[in-house]
């Protein structure tokens, strides 16, 4: 993916540029709001990562200005402000995701990749998602593997749906908590793991090839193991 990083902290920016390149992405960097805006305005990026507090033009104004120019490049806001209000403000300004500092790079990477895979505007939503021999029908809410129907609880269904929408990519525990339960707090004990292992029991237990994989230190990923 082509990424744009707008971050004024040199050290953090250098680290992120290096880490994103190592993960196989192309990345441009701007150190202030105005040059960031110019780059975002001219360049064709898949995702931009915007620090909230920037010299010359703050991150939220930058995103709001781009949105006013009908630039819909998905934006992830990085911020030292982590309260619920700050998050809401960020998303209201046109941000697509919000991550408070300090963060784990694996979390940032997973979120950026998830944003980049969003289907283009106006494209029809897939009604049937397939991963290997696993099929999820979003109209009938039916899930089957190798032709065998699997009965899921509503929350398990949403969990699987989110994993399958991001098939082949890492999904972190906080992303799951945010998208499946709509909470952003820290659940202290790792409750998400238990939900995933329950889902795994239904999806993978009776089959030879596991589809749901644990990515150490990051989260989970669903992918066709045969490939």
């Amino acid at each position, binding site marked *: 993916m082509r990424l744009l990083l707008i971050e004024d902290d040199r050290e953090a920016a250098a680290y992120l540029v290096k880490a994103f390149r190592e993960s196989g992405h192309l990345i441009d960097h701007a150190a202030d709001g105005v040059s960031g805006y110019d780059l975002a305005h001219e360049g064709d990026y898949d995702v931009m990562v915007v620090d909230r507090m920037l010299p010359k033009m703050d991150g939220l104004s930058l995103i709001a200005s781009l949105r006013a120019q009908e630039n819909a490049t998905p934006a992830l806001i990085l911020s030292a402000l*982590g*309260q*619920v*209000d700050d998050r*809401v403000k960020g998303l209201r300004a046109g941000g697509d995701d919000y991550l408070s500092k*300090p963060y*784990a790079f694996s979390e940032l990477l997973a979120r950026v990749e998830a944003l980049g895979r969003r289907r283009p505007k106006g494209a029809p939503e897939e009604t049937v998602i397939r991963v290997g021999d696993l099929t999820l029908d979003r109209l009938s809410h039916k899930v089957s593997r190798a032709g065998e129907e699997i009965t899921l609880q509503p*929350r398990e269904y949403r969990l699987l749906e989110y994993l399958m929408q991001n098939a082949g990519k890492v999904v972190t525990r906080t992303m799951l*908590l945010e998208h499946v*339960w*709509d*909470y*952003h*707090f*820290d*659940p*202290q*004990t790792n*409750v998400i793991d*238990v*939900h995933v*292992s*329950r889902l795994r029991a239904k999806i993978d237990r009776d089959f030879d090839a596991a589809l749901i994989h644990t990515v150490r*230190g990051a989260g989970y990923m669903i992918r066709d193991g045969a490939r």
Partner: protein
Amino acid sequence: MTALGKTLRSTAFRLTFAIFGFGAIGAAVVLGLVAVQVIKLVDEETRAAIASEAELLLEQYDSGGLRRLGLVLAARSRAPGGSLYLLTDAIGEPLVGNVSQLPPSLTLASGFGETRYQGVAGAKMGRALARVYALPNGFRLLVGHDLGDRGRIGAVMVRTLSFSLVLFAGLAALGALFVARRVLRRIDAMNVSAKALMAGDMTERLPVSGSGDELDRLAVGLNQMLARIGELMSGLREVSDNIAHDLRTPLTRLRNHAEEALRVDGDKDAYRTALLRTIEESDGLIRVFDALLMIARAEAGADRSGLARLDLGEVVAGVAELYEPLAEERGFALTVDCEPGLALEGRRELIGQALANLIDNALKYGAGAMDRNEIAVAARREGGDVVIEVADRGPGVAAQDRERVFDRFVRLESARSRPGSGLGLSLAAAVARLHGGAVRLEDNAPGLKVRLTLPAAPP
């Protein structure tokens, strides 16, 4: 600024002086009215006197003719006093009297009138109130009175007025100085207190005289505000003290891990392990830090904005559902009993987190005897409140510890060995306070029942 200058510039002085000024104007108006009335009265009396004198003189004419009238007039004209007389013939030639000639403005038709007159032989001149009466054969008789008395009365009035104005001005200045000094002294005392406060002595309070006047009420109001600010400040200081104190431990651990890794000449795996532990420790630190910040914010009341109407049932069901698999894995039976249609004004995220903390605590510390691993989550309306209960069948919390556990970082002996920051209940309590509610611990006989009370939304 000199003391006098300050006094003269003070609001109290100006106000007092203005009040005296209005008083002086009032006095002048009253005196003026009195003068007008007195002059009117004097005028009326003069007219009456002229009329009766004229009547008397005409009687003399009737009884003794022109000659007798002339004698009477001649006698009277010489008498001292302000009376004026003049008898003229038909063409206006003066015959007898103490006025040199008939004033042209006075005619038979004009009745009483004010006029200037000239006494005989330049004796005196002045203003007079007079009337001309007709005698047979065209003779005319002027009877009048000098108006000098009226002028004297006016002069007395003006003197009185000037004197009272001077007196008023003097009193005004004295009174204003007195009031201003008094008020200024108190305001200066307040200023001294304010400066002490600004210099950092937060225990200083504005002086209250005890008279209960508006300055006192202002001082009392400001003192209450200072007390509240003091509370908030000490709260913040407590938070920062706690942060400083309790972040030291994990920070030291963090440092130790790094040092250990450097000191021992380990292989790649050892470094990796040390780094992983460092990241783990710093994540824990961030978590504690976030929780502390949130508690502090909630306690400062800074986050009261942004409350939205929400369905408590959705929150309770959602959080319970989040924890249900974990509860099952740990051998707990988690039951939810939620009254439908519970609405409140709040923040879903915070209430969700508070409830999550309570359930998490129950899972950590609420294990009872083997067959009694139960966690019962209930929500219902009680009067004007909604109550969320999380009850377990564990060892409970001793009555004397039930207040203490809400303090930040407090972990009971029995809990020390297990993971946790000691912030869960503090956070739940802060969330409750932010919403205007409270958290209370009760005996579940056996076990612990945590009651989170929040004000219900108006229907």
